């Protein structure tokens, strides 16, 4: 099968965010970057598909040179080749990414395109469904189980309080959610093999983002919490305050 996976590089989830001096982005000093955790589920699902049905897994990332790190992680897990759609800065929106990926894929005959259901930096959940519309192929987001048979997919999609069983024809776009699989840890052999896998670089299209960030700030800090230290003896007073002061019970 002709399988694609789209990945991004994000600050580690343990990052304590500081705003940079431009007041529009985060201060990258001391931040360690990782492949977006949801993208690991996407890569794993792609590799498993290749292992069961044959084919090739191509990884795509949109970003600066740094985004190659995410592609390399996918290589270590077993992806075959990489495409970096290269940008001059990290300042772009979901539409920019979706349009660039769609433009690249439109003549590549993808049979299935995997994404992580969202990135943990901008949390948009927009790109898979935008690519779906731009390419005119179906997409299913937040997928926790996927079966492919005879050119059709059946997916379980997580929604509030349950799951939807969704059907669609190939080619299809899948947004992978935690639970769909257990991503593998690369072994020494696969790490060594990853070093020789090629990354093709192409220039991103010059188009404007539709949404712009005017300002980034930290949420207001909380102060003045009432903390009791006498264990269960303080419970009645706490519950009284929740009722009478906070009015939440």
């Amino acid at each position, binding site marked *: 099968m002709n399988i694609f996976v789209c990945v991004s590089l994000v600050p580690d*989830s*343990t*990052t*304590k*965010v500081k705003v940079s001096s431009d007041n529009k982005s985060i201060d990258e000093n001391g931040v360690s970057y990782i492949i977006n955790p949801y993208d690991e589920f996407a890569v794993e699902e792609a590799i498993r598909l290749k292992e069961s049905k044959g084919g090739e897994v191509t990884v795509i990332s949109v970003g600066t040179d740094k985004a190659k790190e995410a592609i390399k992680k996918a290589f270590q897990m077993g992806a075959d080749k990489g495409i970096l759609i290269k940008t001059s800065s990290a300042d772009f929106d*979901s539409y920019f990414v979706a349009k660039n990926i769609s433009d690249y894929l439109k003549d590549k005959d993808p049979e299935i395109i995997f994404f992580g259901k969202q990135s*943990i*930096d*901008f*949390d*948009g*959940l*927009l*790109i*898979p*469904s*935008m690519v*779906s*519309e731009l390419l005119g*192929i*179906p997409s299913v*987001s*937040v997928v926790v189980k996927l079966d492919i048979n005879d050119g059709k997919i059946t997916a379980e999609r*997580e*929604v*509030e*309080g*349950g*799951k*939807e*069983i*969704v*059907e*669609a024809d190939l080619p*299809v776009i899948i947004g992978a959610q*935690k*639970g769909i699989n257990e991503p593998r840890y690369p072994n020494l052999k696969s790490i060594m093999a990853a070093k020789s896998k090629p990354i093709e670089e192409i220039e991103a299209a010059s188009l404007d983002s*539709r*949404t*712009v960030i*005017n300002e*980034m*700030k930290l*949420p207001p800090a*909380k102060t003045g*919490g*009432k*903390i*009791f*230290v*006498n*264990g*269960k003896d*303080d*419970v009645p007073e*706490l*519950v009284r305050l*929740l*009722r009478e002061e906070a009015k*939440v019970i």
Partner: protein
Amino acid sequence: MSKKILAFIESKDGKFKNSSFEVISEAKIIAEKLGSDFTVLTIGKTDENEIKELAKYGAKKIITVDLDKLNSKSPVQGIKYSPSAFAGVISEAAKKESAQIIMLSATSLGKDLSGRVAIKTDSAVFNDCIAVNVADGKITASRPVYAGKSITEISTDCENILISLRPNVFKPEISDNTQIEITETDPDSLNIEAGDFSSVVKDLIVSDEKLDVAEADRIVSGGRGLRGPENFNLIENLAASIGAATGASRAVVDAGWRPHSEQVGQTGKTVSPSLYIACGISGAIQHLAGMSSSKCIVAVNKDKDAPIFQIADYGIVGDVFEILPEMTEEFKKVVSN
């Protein structure tokens, strides 16, 4: 000419979701600030009395689309609904109403629809917003990024904007309006084609009727301090005493004690309930990111230096195994009064 708004609202089992009232109230406020008006759109089966109730939130005009009629256009039979067809209906309705602003709630469905509708209508997306502002006729919005570790102010030069509102953040406001004009629109008039049913929902599996953490107004979460999955009955009992949903930290989900649908945090769900009770959760930064916008945070932890206490409005330092049963009993007393 000021921009008109189309407000898409959701129903479940014939009743409108609470998030729908939030969307209508906010659409009314934005329309007033823009000096324009708004039309509500709903797809599904809701009875006329339910629809008339929407007037009190300020809705004066609603378009209804019958789900069975819409589904009958699907080439696949026996479907519950199709998210791609919903996106088609919203986009077509916006064009018909000449609405340049589309508002909806950032629920599972809303998130699934936003990207699709944005492409169909050439809109910029302000998604998962916690505030929407209008200054000199221009709309800006606040949206959390990095799971709430920081907040961005966003704007656009696009003519069309799709705005999704984070559930549970905007408060439904009652107005003195009592009149609502209901128009049923036939899907045949909306230019919906077979191709719009590219993905179809064949079935819905409800997970034992439990309240979902993403929608709940009260949440009781448990972490590693509970010591094992067998002790989560303490969390469930406490949650039951105040009608709360149960949540969990990443540590206990990764350990397999709780399902990942309960996970709160940067790689789980971001929540902002009225009340969040964190039990035996130390407060790793990625957990705090997912719940720190809760209106009232209560922490129970044996370690007085746990980071969770720094963002707590109320806290008790002590043993969860003693405190949680006591709190459950106290809640029961208070709630029954």
